[in-house]
């Protein structure tokens, strides 16, 4: 029993160590706040070579260069905005995982909201249509029909 517990604990520790392994090389920062910004920015900047990775977990040479540059610029006191502008000027809007909102990226930013709205609209229309169908089905019976219904019900009761 204790052995199984130990095994589980070991597995849990393994899960904890995975994010740490994502860091490829370590940089010394003069201020912990800079290090935090380094982590955020390197996770947001996209590797131009290996297109579905950010520069934080890509080991392409270009990502290594960009991480080094990021470190230098942060230590030199550049703001987030300045660093992103610098990268975009060289690699285009592509290099950001959260591109600026402009003509070319409008579709990208607006499509999710529009799709949700379209979905809600379709759902509402369908539900309304179904409700109307139900009310149409529930027609009032005339007196003659009600009498006939009663007769049928009485009859089944007698039979059973």
């Amino acid at each position: 029993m204790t052995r199984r517990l130990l095994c589980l604990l070991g597995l849990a520790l393994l899960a904890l160590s995975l994010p740490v392994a994502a860091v490829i090389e370590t940089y010394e920062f003069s201020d912990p706040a800079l290090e935090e910004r380094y982590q955020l920015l390197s996770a947001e900047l996209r590797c131009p070579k290996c297109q579905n990775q950010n520069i934080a977990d890509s080991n392409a040479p270009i990502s290594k260069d960009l991480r080094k540059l990021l470190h230098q610029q942060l230590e030199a006191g550049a703001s987030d905005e300045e660093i992103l502008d610098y990268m975009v000027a060289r690699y285009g809007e592509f290099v950001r995982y959260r591109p600026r909102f402009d003509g070319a990226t409008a579709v990208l930013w607006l499509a999710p909201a529009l799709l949700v709205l379209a979905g809600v609209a379709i759902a509402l229309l369908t539900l309304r249509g179904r409700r109307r169908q139900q009310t149409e089905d529930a027609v009032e019976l005339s007196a003659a029909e009600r009498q006939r219904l009663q007769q049928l019900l009485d009859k089944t009761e007698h039979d059973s």
Partner: protein
Amino acid sequence: MAPRLKLFIPLILFAAMAVFLFRGLSLNPQELPSALIDRPLPQFELPALGQERVLAREDLLGEPALLNVWATWCVACRVEHPYLQQLADSGVPIYGVNYKDEDGAAGRWLAELGNPYRFNIADRDGTLGLDLGVYGAPETYLLDADGVIRYRHVGVVDERVWETILQPRYLQLAAGGDTP
């Protein structure tokens, strides 16, 4: 809408998606437009490979030319090298950027395989490469006579790439045309 027509909505949606997805099959996601198209070549001051002089942006002006980013560690560069030599022999000016490489290895490469370049900029730390937005060799930039970047091709330049993509733009620039 007539209920009959409504039945065709899924088919229409399917057809629209099929058209987009089919188009997607022939697109190359690796092909990024350079952020520097129609912008001047960045300023730089770097040593010339194998020569005792410092090169700057001004050395590349005067006529339309190709700027080829290469390195000895780049396998595809070896593939395109003979074709660059052929282009240079036919009179196309080609300048080289020896990108993140060792001067010794680069010198041996040129001695062994031939030198299609008018001169090579020794970009040992990749600083010019960074300013150009290079993300992997080989890359070839088409410059006009004023040193403005007109086109960037990522990957090997071979006969097909030259004839269909680069040559028409180059000829237009050489003829004094403004924009390709």
